[in-house]
């Protein structure tokens, strides 16, 4: 047997899960899709004494739409979003990100809450959450709170969650009219974690000027990186090819990616620049309706 010994808990409601986490403190871990946690346990890099399985908590598995956007329960499978016409129509960036998350067999289990809570620096969903100004609904022993995506990702594999808190849902606000989005990445093989990637959202006003731009890079730092200086270059202006080049150069100027077996820092930075350029162009084409 690969993992170290643990006690297994299968709560039926959120409150019970929180109580278990509080009781066992640092020795307890939440299990969602298991697509990141179980590899770590099999390698014994993670050895929780108590595993609290959220898969039997039905109230965490849902997808709803309200006037302000879509709300996704934490244990909703990535594959459910990928198959959802609602997500495709109302939150196309999230929908387009799905096929980039591992392989379909992984997405059959992997959850939205798990992706955010795990906070892998190269994962797509944190960057998408940042670009879409998502809010992470968290529940813990002292009650509920909403954490803005920009405050949620603290460091590599580290979030604003306390040890007895769980992600309950994620809210993705609807985008204003005239908005186009895009997500692009380069990975070694289909389904691998990105060596560099970018999520982008552009909104055009009726005159065709860019009223709002949001760009977040992933795989090039410990957390997804919003590149505000590059966004500023685009905002308030008509987006030309020249401006896109300028913004792309600015986006990677301050990046400090690390080198590893997958790619050198210089390569990641170079690729990130190209991807930013392409993502802005793609988002722009969608904002103007030239591309679907």
């Amino acid at each position, binding site marked *: 047997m690969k993992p170290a010994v643990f006690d297994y808990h299968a709560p039926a409601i959120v409150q019970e899960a929180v109580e278990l986490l509080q009781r066992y403190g640092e020795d307890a871990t939440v299990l969602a899709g*298991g697509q990141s946690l179980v590899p770590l346990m099999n390698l014994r890099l993670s050895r929780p004494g108590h595993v609290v*399985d959220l898969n039997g908590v039905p109230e965490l598995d849902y997808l709803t739409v309200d006037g302000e956007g879509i709300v996704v329960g934490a244990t909703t499978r990535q594959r459910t979003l990928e198959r959802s016409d609602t997500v495709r129509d109302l939150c196309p960036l999230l929908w387009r990100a799905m096929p980039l998350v591992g392989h379909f067999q992984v997405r059959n289990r992997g959850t939205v809450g798990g992706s955010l809570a795990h906070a892998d620096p190269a994962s797509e969903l944190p960057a998408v959450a940042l670009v879409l100004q998502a809010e992470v609904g968290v529940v813990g022993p002292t009650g509920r709170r909403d954490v803005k995506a920009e405050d949620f990702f603290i460091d590599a594999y580290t979030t604003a969650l306390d040890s007895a808190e769980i992600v309950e849902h994620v809210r993705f606000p609807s985008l204003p009219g005239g908005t186009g989005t895009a997500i692009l990445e380069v990975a070694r093989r289909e389904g691998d974690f990105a060596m560099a990637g970018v999520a982008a959202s552009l909104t055009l006003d009726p005159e065709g000027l860019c009223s709002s731009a949001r760009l977040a890079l992933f795989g090039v730092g410990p957390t997804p990186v919003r590149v505000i200086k590059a966004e500023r270059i685009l905002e308030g202006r008509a987006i030309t090819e020249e401006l896109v080049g300028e913004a792309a150069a600015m986006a990677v100027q301050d990046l400090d990616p690390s080198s590893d077996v997958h790619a050198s820092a210089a390569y990641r930075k170079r690729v990130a620049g190209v991807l930013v350029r392409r993502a802005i162009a793609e988002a722009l084409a969608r904002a103007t309706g030239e591309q679907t």
Partner: protein
Amino acid sequence: MAQVALRLKVNGVEHEALVEPRLTLADFLRTDLGLTGTHLGCEHGVCGACTVLLDGEAVRSCLLFAVQTEGHEVITIEGMAQGEELHPIQEAFWEQHGLQCGFCTPGFILSAYNLLQENAQPSEEEIQAAISGNLCRCTGYQSIVASVKAAAEKLQLQRES
């Protein structure tokens, strides 16, 4: 060590067992049930050799604990053939040389099964994406893509007749 009672259906047969929570579904299938057609390559989610169907969906059995399958239904490669008669996907792999050593084959066949259930006529690109989570060190994948295509045709003929 505390053992937990487990009840699940595997290849249509009800099973009851006492298992340690840390026992993965893959190890349960192989050692407790003797279903060694589910292969283990990496045991951390990368190779896809351990793919089984959980309630009809292809998943990695090395990343599930057996206790999590309480009340669920699992299909392994042993559940594909009807007696002596191979499943059309197995037949297609055989005819198109979709395997050499065969280590990866159960995983590819169950992934292909899930793909073809959702998408009866996948394009070559869709096939490639669907098998990207399964590693093969022998074939070079071309013959596997051809096998999945041939399997789609066989299943189509089967539906028509």
